[in-house]
């Protein structure tokens, strides 16, 4: 790798120096943010740096990094969230479309300039009336008479880099003639350059956090896009969008982990020096709990992210979209929780703008929202998993519904055996097991959870079938269990490797692993018990009733505690 040093400077942050290759450390990182300059446009300067993007393969002039290396770099860049978001919008979604679905000549035309940083890319999908609903986008691209251009009309909202970008990946509805002759409207992806004309960006939005990144509306008025700039095929924009969105998610795990590690350092420094009641803050149990939480979450996040990156780096094109979604959900929620706890350790000073905690808190709030809101991703995780399980179980379910005696007897005997409470052995521990004996208990817990989960999934599919799509409260629990299971797997495998290889502080890792596994085990048990039919822990009916009454009146309906009738 010949590309060495990147100097990225924002007025907000002071200098951030990123060294070369893998062993990067930020050398100067001033914690002093200047509130006055933290405005919508703090003057982010992206100097004529080389290699603004490091994902494109060498043909495009990029670094050609693998997923793992990308995750590693993300760890460092994430120390400033605005920079991370801008870079991610540029290369994780902005030009990913060209890489994934572009033709050779499109790649040759656009990638070099984009990779070098001369041009910045943006991803234009969201409109005022359509967030996740792709079928309702209103931007239209009509073919001109000479069939050489598409005329693009519409407006997109909340586009990161909208003001800076010169290359946009725009999704618009086009008329497509089906194989049986019917004309339908389908989504198509286009590469649109700012030079095509008719593109205006609105003023930068005033956001809660990541105020260093540029987010604005982009309006297209009769923009002429040549036919060669269609990305993929006409009418295939949906798949392109899905692939782009599903591929960049996992790096959030390592990015957040990097930020959390830095945060632990800063907060621990404070906790060990500040004295109250003649004792350091670090001697109080509640403060210690917070640090344990931060360390544990950071560990799990890292493990999950690098496990997913490793899986993606396997030869072939493995589909790890569910794992990436799980990483994203876990890390975004853990980020919000941990940054809040870190701010809490500082108490009043954490609340002041002189310290970076409040900025980091505000920046981390967006993690739960962009790249697919956590609620949507939970649906995705659960439904994709259930689809997969459902296909496998179709044969059995059909037999059960028909009343095949042998299948029924099998199921009944299985249930009886389960209820007798025998331990499940899936081969994780033991002589040939992958998990080190010091984590035997946690591995048993994982096995038990997996087994119970498989039974529950069967029952759910039997109960609900296709209509499980509407049972979002059930799907949420399934997704939570899945995320916990994946976390347990990642953590156990990483800790085992640490011990066997002999990395430093591996016993600390074992501790973290065991803590997380135990917590996740009990959470999973509770979620599984809630998924039973008529279980007393399941409050779904009551919740739905309450929400229906509140939403009917669109207000809080209880009488005030001070109300009297006489």
């Amino acid at each position, binding site marked *: 790798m010949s590309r060495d040093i990147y100097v990225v400077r924002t007025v907000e942050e002071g200098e951030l120096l990123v060294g070369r290759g893998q062993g990067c450390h930020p050398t100067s990182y001033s914690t002093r943010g200047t509130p006055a300059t933290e405005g919508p446009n703090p003057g982010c300067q992206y100097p004529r740096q080389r290699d603004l993007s490091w994902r494109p393969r060498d043909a495009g002039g990029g670094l050609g990094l693998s997923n793992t290396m990308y995750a590693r770099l993300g760890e460092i860049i994430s120390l400033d969230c605005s920079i991370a978001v801008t870079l991610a919008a540029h290369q994780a979604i902005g030009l990913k479309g060209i890489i994934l679905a572009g033709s050779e000549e499109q790649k040759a035309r656009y990638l070099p300039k984009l990779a070098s940083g001369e041009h910045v890319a943006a991803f234009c*999908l969201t409109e005022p009336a359509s967030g*996740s*609903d*792709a*079928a309702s986008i209103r931007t239209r691209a009509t073919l001109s008479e000479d069939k050489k251009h598409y005329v693009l009309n519409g407006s997109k909202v909340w586009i990161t880099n909208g003001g800076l970008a010169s290359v946009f990946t725009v999704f618009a509805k086009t008329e497509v003639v089906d194989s049986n002759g019917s004309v339908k409207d*389908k*989504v198509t992806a286009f590469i649109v350059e700012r030079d095509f004309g008719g593109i205006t960006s609105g003023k930068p939005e005033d956001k809660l956090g990541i105020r260093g990144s540029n987010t604005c509306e982009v309006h297209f008025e009769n923009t002429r896009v040549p036919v060669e700039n269609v990305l993929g095929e006409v009418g295939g924009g*949906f*798949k392109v*969008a*899905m692939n782009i*969105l599903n591929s960049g998610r996992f790096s959030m795990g390592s990015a957040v982990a990097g930020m959390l590690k830095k945060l632990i350092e800063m907060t621990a420094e404070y906790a060990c020096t500040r004295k109250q009641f003649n004792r350091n803050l670090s001697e109080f149990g509640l403060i210690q709990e917070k640090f344990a939480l931060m360390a544990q979450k950071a560990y799990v996040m890292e493990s999950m992210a690098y496990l997913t990156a490793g899986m993606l780096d396997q030869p072939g094109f493995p589909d790890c979209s569910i794992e990436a979604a799980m990483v994203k959900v876990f890390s975004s929620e853990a980020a919000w929780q941990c940054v809040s706890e870190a701010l809490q350790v500082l108490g009043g000073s954490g609340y002041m703008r002189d310290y970076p905690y409040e900025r980091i808190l505000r920046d981390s709030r967006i993690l739960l929202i962009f790249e*697919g809101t956590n609620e*949507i*991703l939970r*649906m*995705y995780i659960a*439904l*994709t998993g*259930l*689809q997969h399980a*459902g*296909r496998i179980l*179709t044969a059995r*379910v*059909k037999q059960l*519904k028909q009343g095949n005696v042998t299948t029924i007897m099998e199921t009944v005997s299985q249930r009886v055996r389960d209820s007798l409470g025998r331990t499940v052995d899936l081969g994780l521990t033991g002589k040939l097991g992958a998990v080190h004996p010091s984590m035997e208990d946690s591995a048993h817990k994982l096995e038990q959870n997996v087994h119970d989960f498989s039974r529950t999934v069967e029952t759910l*599919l*039997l*109960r*609900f*079938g*296709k*209509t*499980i*799509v509407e049972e979002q409260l059930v799907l949420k629990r399934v997704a939570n269990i899945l995320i916990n299971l994946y976390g347990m797997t990642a953590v156990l495998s990483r800790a085992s490797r640490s011990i066997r290889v002999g990395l430093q502080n591996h016993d600390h890792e074992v501790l973290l692993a065991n803590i997380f596994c135990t917590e996740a085990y009990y959470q999973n048990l509770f979620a599984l018990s809630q998924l039973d*039919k008529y279980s007393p822990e399941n409050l779904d009916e009551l919740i739905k009733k309450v929400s229906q009454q509140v939403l*009917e*009146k*669109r207000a809080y309906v209880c*009488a005030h505690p001070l109300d009297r*009738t*006489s």
Partner: protein
Amino acid sequence: MSWAQAILLARGLSRGWGGICSTALTGAPFSQVTPQAPRGLHCSTAAHQPDSPLVPRPPEPQRGLVKALAPHEELFRQAPDGVRDKASFVQAVQNFTQYNVHKRGHVDFIYLALRKMREYGVERDLAIYNLLLDIFPKEVFRPRNIFHSIFLHYPRQQECGIAVLEQMENHGVMPNKETEFLLTQIFGRKSYPMLKFVRMKLWFTRFKNINPFPVPRDLPQDPVDLARLALRHMEPDLSARVTVYQMPLSKDSTDATDPTEPHIIGIQSPDQQAALAHHDPAHPIFVEGPFSLWLRDKCVYYHILRADLLPPEEREVEEIPEEWNLYYPMQLDLAYGRSSWDDYEFNIDEVEEGPVFAICMAGAHDQATLAKWIQGLQETNPTLARIPVVFRLSASSGELLASSSGLEEPPLTPPEGREEEENNQQRQQQSQS
């Protein structure tokens, strides 16, 4: 006593008794003082004149209906230029109390006053009820020994007290401490009126908020405002918009609405608008009505615009577009559906009805007014122009006219039979062009 005197006494007594018996038989309230008490021998047997009228009695007008005047009714006779309101009611009551120190006939008077309260518009006024209770002489009806308390002491008065409280209950007036004090003074703590009072205090507070769809106590008098309130009351969707299509012409007399320009107010929610936009023009939609809606004591009439339910064959199955949600599959392609143990769709109480697209309230119930409503609806629902509208107005517009004036007109002669006219595109096109 000679036998002549005895006969005269007997005759007088029998007349007295007969009077009492007759009043008892007719069920008129038994006043303590009969108008024809048996007199002593030395008085003339001529009918004793009732108390001289306290208010100078104007000459009796010739009336077609012969109604026996209740005693003391003249107190409530309206002075020719007077208006019936609280002050005059209070004046009438005070006249009674002032000039009738012994409060003879107070039970009758209280019953009469209770009947007259509605005319004077004071039926919801607690002070008036307290005033009426004040008419009772105090401390007289309180039981003083055990025999009084065993037997219903002064039953008619207790009944009268209960009647006052019952009228309070019917009009939803909550008694207060003054009422309690009065009742204690008049009837004592162990009496039936006091028992009723205690029950009122308990249950009224509990039942105050029992109506899940409360209607405000003071309804607006203006028909437009009343219609607005009624429409909002009927429509559960909070996003619905009330539109006034036509205001009544304001005239000097606020009562009558101009027959050529009655008010028309409609309500429609965005869901209803969307449903109307999707409605197939091959099926007609119907304007039905008038249906009545009672708000406390006011009855208003409304019409609805509805369509019939499509038969199952024609119902279009909502197509789930294939590429709909970018993030998760909206549809799982599994071969099996929900198990019947988890199927809660069938609900015996829910009957599926055809869609209702809008509701309106108008001053008149004829087709011309409702056609104006349809025209007004067309502005927000352009597809309505292509859909045939059938007016199915029911025969009797048996309206209860608001009896703000004392006299009630007999209802208008209803049109015979059901009107059913096709009001097709032609008319609408005509009205549009």
